């Protein structure tokens, strides 16, 4: 595999392609590319228009909610996000290395999040819309990097160093929030959660070391880095995020080398660590007890989960309506518990639809990385998808009381810049991988003729 990768590094960057003569093979490649984008065209347009309609109706409703007054802010949020959604889905993928279907699904999730947040708290909706715009910019930057950069060694080492530094920051300067010390305030940037961004470093370093080197000692630097991150997260008491890192590492290890005994060993080690964590941290014990029977302490430890269940139950199949109900009763309603708010307002059917959207997004991502020819990209994509999938499962499963609650955000939906921007950056990575897969295909057609 690595040998193959080297032959491709000699390729000129994509920009140089246009200056070459328009051979028949190139024309064929272009036609094929267009054929692919046309095949996805109808679905993409449908999703984009649905998203547009949802945002327009939701925010127009919010705009006239107060009788006799028009909320101009709702209109400005609508003017910001709705055209941007259409633009990034329908127009941008023609010019930039992007996948239109992936973009359409991402935009749908982000759009739902902004509308629901706006109806619950106008200020948060507005801020989320701004984070969304910033996140899209980061996404484009990431997709540009992944589709162009050929040598990752320097980038990986840099991101590892930055990652460790970023995780030490909150321990040194941060303050405790909800029983964890995982936030940090910086001048100019404002307050943010470094662990959200370090996810990218972890996936990158694991993909880099696991793709180039296949023996365990050679894979060690990445495993050590991941372990160091885990240790720092434990110190921050951010156990939910630690669990995501750990499971992602395990998934990537298994995908990279397929070594079942070692993966099982890692799984057992994690289970042992979880048992230890259960013994050591009082709040983990409370979480587990409240998962088993939240009704035992309905106004104390079980309050959060009970309020979430009450909200989901009150919504019924079709919900009480956007902006209706009393979502603010649920602690962290805009954040970890946004799924409960969604179910109360739009109903169980819509909640399940959102879950299906996550699955479609992951399935699309999997099909994109399946086309890539380099194990590095494949692993990078796997890591990103594992992270998104595991995180969604953990938080939604926690909110509906299927598994113990872990305080992690719901990708794309939860309020917060760190989470949204890092999730969109991951989508950017997938776009970049998709673009490279596309190039590889053209290359293959060219070389065949």
């Amino acid at each position, binding site marked *: 595999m690595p040998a193959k990768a080297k032959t491709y590094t000699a390729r000129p960057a994509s920009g140089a392609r246009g200056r070459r003569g328009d051979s028949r093979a190139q024309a064929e490649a272009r036609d094929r590319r267009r054929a692919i984008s046309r095949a996805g065209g109808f679905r993409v347009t449908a999703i984009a228009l649905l998203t547009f309609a949802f945002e327009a109706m939701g925010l127009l409703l919010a705009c006239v909610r107060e009788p006799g007054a028009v909320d101009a802010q709702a209109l400005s949020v609508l003017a910001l996000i709705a055209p941007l959604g259409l633009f990034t889905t329908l127009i941008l993928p023609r010019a930039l290395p992007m996948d239109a279907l992936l973009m359409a699904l991402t935009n749908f999730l982000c759009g739902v999040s902004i509308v629901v947040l706006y109806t619950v708290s106008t200020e948060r909706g507005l801020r989320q819309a701004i984070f969304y715009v910033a996140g899209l910019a980061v996404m484009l930057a990431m997709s540009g990097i992944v589709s162009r950069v050929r040598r990752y060694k320097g980038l990986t080492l840099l991101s590892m160093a930055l990652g460790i530094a970023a995780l030490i920051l909150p321990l040194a300067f941060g303050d405790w929030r909800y029983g964890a010390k995982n936030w940090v305030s910086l001048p100019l940037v404002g307050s943010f959660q470094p662990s959200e961004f370090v996810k990218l470093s972890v996936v990158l370093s694991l993909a880099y070391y696991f793709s180039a080197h296949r023996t365990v000692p050679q894979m060690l630097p990445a495993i050590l880095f991941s372990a160091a991150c885990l240790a720092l997260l434990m110190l921050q008491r951010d156990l939910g995020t630690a669990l995501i890192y750990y499971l992602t590492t395990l998934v990537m290890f298994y995908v990279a080398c397929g070594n079942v005994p070692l993966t099982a060993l890692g799984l057992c080690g994690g289970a042992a660590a979880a048992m230890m964590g259960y013994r050591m941290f009082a709040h983990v014990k409370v979480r587990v007890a409240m998962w088993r029977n939240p009704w035992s302490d309905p106004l104390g430890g079980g309050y959060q989960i009970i309020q979430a269940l009450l909200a989901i*139950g009150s919504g019924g199949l079709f919900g009480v309506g956007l902006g209706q109900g009393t979502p603010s009763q649920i602690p962290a309603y805009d954040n970890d518990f946004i799924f409960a708010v969604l179910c109360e307002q739009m109903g169980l059917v819509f909640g399940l639809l959102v879950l299906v959207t996550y*699955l479609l997004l992951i399935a699309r991502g999997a099909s994109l990385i399946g086309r890539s020819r380099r194990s590095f990209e494949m692993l990078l994509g796997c890591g990103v998808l*594992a992270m998104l999938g595991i995180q969604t499962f953990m938080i939604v499963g926690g909110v509906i009381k299927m598994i113990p609650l872990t305080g992690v955000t719901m990708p794309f939906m939860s309020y917060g810049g760190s989470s949204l921007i890092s999730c969109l950056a991951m989508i950017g990575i997938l776009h970049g991988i998709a673009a490279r897969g596309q190039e590889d295909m053209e290359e293959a057609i060219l070389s065949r003729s």
Partner: protein
Amino acid sequence: MLTLLFALFGVMTAYCCYSVFFYGGRWVSNPYNPRITSQKQSVVMGTVTDRDGAVLAYTDASGARRYSDNRETRMAVSQVVGDSGGQVSTGVETFHAPYLLGFKSSVWERLADAFTGTPQRGDDVRLTISERLSRHITESFPEGKRGAVVVMNYKTGEILAMVSLPQFDPEDMESALADEEAGALVNRATQGLYPPGSTFKIVTLASALENLPDLDDFAFNCTGYYPVGNYSVTESAEHGVQSLKQAFVHSCNTAFAALSQDLSYQMLGATAEQLGFNENFMFGDLIVYNSSYPIDDLSAEDLAWSSIGQGRVLATPLHMALIACTVARGGLSVEPTLLASITTAQGGARKLPAREPGSRALPAAVAQEIEEDMIAVVKSGTGTRAALGDGYVVAGKTGSAEVSDDEGVAAHAWFVGYVVNDNAPYAVSVLVEHGGSGGAVAAPIARRALQRAINLGL
């Protein structure tokens, strides 16, 4: 890997649907749901009446929640109806708030309200209980004692009265809350878990009839005690040699302890579970706490004690009434109902919650034999004080459940039974906390309750 993730999401979706479908209604009507309080501000809560239309709870012109004008009525039905503040967590005012507050109204009904300009009104709920029977039972209960009485129609499953003592006045919640220690806010009929004592012998008898051959030859010489394990099961009287029927009629503890040793705890546990022990009662009309029969490995001694309803066996008075219903119906179980009808604000009838059709809990022949033995209990055994005149035959079983090793603490008095008559299909369950002997204390209360139900022709 992807398949695994999809499977996890599939499980999550299924779990979410399952829990909302089965528990969603209970979440909504939970007293911790702030939406109920907020809905009360904007919706006129519907009226609650008894089976004859007597008003038990209503919303007055000023929007305040009021209860029956008659204080005795208010008290007698207090735990069934509940209170506007949700202090009684299982009351109709809380559990059926989704109807009363119009959560179940369709979009069209809400639109109709919006167009006519009337404030939205919740549904009116008519209950199966009789306010008159409830008052009568309250009056006939021993002064100052705590306990519960349930009267049901065993043909339909309707709850005709469900009285729990002490009671409270919903118009005067301050004093009810000030004296919370008394436990008036708990519905002892559905939330009180008591050792069923000798009334559990109905279950043990059923298990023996189902599982043991040649019971006709059963003969046990009662000498007042039966050694098992390190202890002895004792009996106040020496009954001498008796058949199984005689042992049941005299409620002989030692004979049943001996019988239990022929049964295994798997057999007895299986019969108990058929009859609803350890079952998560999910009735559509009311919340009933789960009764428990321990099915983990019982020692010979534990098995002996459990066969006479002592030890870790616990049951609610309502559940014991359901067991009487099952015997009365020839072994078919019935779901208890509390809602007679629901009327929408527009005058239409709302669909009642789904009820499980009865299932076979006991073979008909077994139920028939238990009925004969229970008739004998009232005719010539421990339950003679429950006998009715006018040709009404009563089948029943008494119980005196020991609750303390201290001799000075009186046992809980039980009576469980029913009228063997198609035109008066009434089942009853009486529990008097620390009442003493079931035959002396609980049986007369049961008789008066059944007599009144017959007189009222419910």
